[in-house]
C-alpha cells in the first residue's frame, strides 16, 4: 500500500509569479484546496492552501465596496509572497500508513509527493486517504458487517475465517479492534453476502458472542412509549 497508488498524479500546479486571483480561480474550478508551487523544471518550492488565499484576500464584504480597484491591486499580489515555502513533503515510496500517521501528527490537509531530486510527482490529500480507506474496507461492494467478540489470544481469527469460508462467503475486509472488555478483542468481518443468519448461528454455536452494536446505542435513544 504505497501512496503512489492512491495519490493524485495529475496535479494542478502554479508558479510563484501567479497572482492570487488566478490561484483562487484555479482552486474553485478544480474543487481543490491545495496548489503546489513549482519552478519551471518541476521542482517544488512551496504550497498554497485555500486558507492562505483567504487570509491574504480582503474580506468579501469589502469587495462589494470597490471591487474593480481592489481586484487591480490583488493582481499585483503574487503567490511567492504568501505561499508556505518548503512544505512537508513525502516520497512516492511512503505507505498509506505513513501518510495517515503523518497527516494526523502534522495537522495538515495534504502532502506534496516529490522524488529524490525534489520534483513534484503528485499530491496526497485527506480526501485521497479517505478514498483509499473506503477501498480497503470494501464498503462499495454489497455486503454486511458482523461484529464478533473474541478472547485476546492467538488463533481466534483463523477459526472465524475458516468457519465463514466453509459457508462459501467471501470477505470484503476484516477489522480487528480493541474492546472495552479486558482480555477481549472485537473482530469485524465485512461479508459480501445477504445470507448472514446461518453464519451468525454457526459462530454462536462455536461459543462466540455476536456483538450487537445497537445494544449500547439504543439505551441512549429517547423513548416515546
Amino acid at each position, binding site marked *: 500500500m504505497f501512496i503512489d497508488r492512491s495519490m493524485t498524479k495529475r496535479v494542478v500546479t502554479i508558479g510563484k509569479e501567479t497572482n492570487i486571483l488566478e490561484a483562487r480561480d484555479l482552486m474553485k474550478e478544480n474543487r481543490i484546496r491545495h496548489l503546489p508551487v513549482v519552478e519551471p523544471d518541476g521542482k517544488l518550492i512551496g504550497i498554497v492552501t485555500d486558507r492562505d488565499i483567504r487570509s491574504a484576500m480582503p474580506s468579501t464584504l469589502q469587495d462589494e465596496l470597490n471591487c474593480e480597484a481592489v481586484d487591480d491591486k490583488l493582481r499585483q499580489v503574487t503567490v511567492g509572497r504568501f505561499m508556505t515555502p518548503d512544505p512537508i513533503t513525502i516520497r512516492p515510496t511512503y505507505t498509506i500508513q505513513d501518510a495517515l500517521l503523518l497527516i494526523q501528527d502534522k495537522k495538515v490537509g495534504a502532502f506534496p509527493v516529490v522524488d529524490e531530486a525534489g520534483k513534484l510527482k503528485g499530491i496526497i490529500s485527506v480526501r485521497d486517504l479517505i478514498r483509499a480507506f473506503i477501498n480497503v474496507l470494501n464498503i462499495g*461492494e*454489497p455486503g454486511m458487517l458482523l461484529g464478533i467478540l473474541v478472547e485476546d489470544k492467538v488463533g481466534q481469527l483463523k477459526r472465524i475465517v475458516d468457519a465463514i469460508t466453509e459457508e*462459501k462467503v467471501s470477505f470484503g475486509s476484516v477489522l480487528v479492534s480493541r474492546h472495552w472488555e479486558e482480555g477481549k478483542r472485537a473482530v469485524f468481518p465485512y461479508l*459480501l*453476502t*445477504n*445470507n448472514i*443468519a446461518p453464519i451468525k448461528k454457526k459462530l454462536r454455536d462455536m461459543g462466540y458472542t455476536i456483538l450487537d452494536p445497537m445494544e449500547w446505542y439504543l439505551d441512549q435513544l429517547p423513548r416515546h412509549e
Partner: protein
Amino acid sequence: MRRTGFLYDERYLLHCTGSCHPESPERLKAAYKGIEDAGLLPKLTRIDAVPAQQRWIEKVHHINYILRFEEACLLGMDELDYPDNQMCRETYDTAMLAVGGILETVKMVMEDKIDNAFCAVRPPGHHAEVNKAMGFCYFNNVAIAARYLQEEWGIERVGIVDFDVHHGNGTQHIFEYDPTVYYYSIHEHPSFAFPGTGREFEKGADAGQGYTLNTPVLPGQGDREYLDLIKRDLLPAFEFFQPEFILASTGFDAHAEDDMSDIKLSTEMFTWIMKILMGLADTYAHGRIVSVLEGGYSIQRLPELIKNHVEVMMTP
C-alpha cells in the same frame, strides 16, 4: 370488494438455490398456502405467467448481462456474480417468467380488468443492477414494470415503494437520474444490513435529484419507528410526486421472527403499511397498485403475512 389479481405459477418453484439457501421455493409454497387456506383463491383473479419479451428487459438491463445470465444457466453454472446468487438450469427461464407475469399483471390493471394485484414471484428483483446479479436477484422485476408502464401505457409518473428490509440498490441506481420514477425505500440501516446502500443522503442525482428517498432504520427498532418514519417521509413525498401508478417492492423480512434482519415489526404492522399504500394508490393513482414479492424468509410467518397483505388489497 376490489378486483384483485393474483399472479402465481408453479414454474416459479423451478428456480433452485440449493439446500440451506433462504430464498427457497418453500417461500412461495408458503405464500400460496396462506392464500389457499384462507379461502381467498375463488375471490381472486388468477394470472398465469408468460415469458417476458426480451425487449422489455433491455429497457433496464444491459444486453450483455442478459446474454451472460442466459449463458451461465445453459452452461449449468451454479452461481452468477456472487456466491449469494445460487442458481440452476431453470433460473433464467424462471426469471423471464417472473418479469413476463408481472408485465401481464400490469397490463390487466391498465386494461381495467382488475383493480390491483399481488405478484407471488421468484426470483426477487430489487437488488439486481443494470449489469449484475446481486442479493438473490437477477432481473429487476419492478424496474422493468415501471419502464413498461411508461413506454407501453403512457404513464408519466411511477411511484415505487420498497418496504423489504434491505435497500433496493438496483432499483435506486436504475432510476437515480430520472425524475419520472420516484423510488422510496424504508429498510434497516445500511451500516448494519445488506447491501450497504440506501443512506439518508442518497436522494437522486442531476434531474433525478429529489426523486429518491431513503429511510434507514436502526437495528432493534420496530412498529413505532416505522409508523412515525413512514408518515414523516413517504406521505409528503408522494403528495409532492403524485404518482399515477404505484409499484410495491414487498418484502416481509422486517418481521420480528425473520432472521434476515434485526428490525422487529409485528404482523399487524405489515397490514398497516399495506393500508397506507392502498390509501396512496386511491388518492393519487386511481387505486392502481401492483405489489411484487421481494424478500421474506420466515416459512412459518409468510402464509399469514401474505394472506393479510392480499386481504388488504381486496378490501374496498
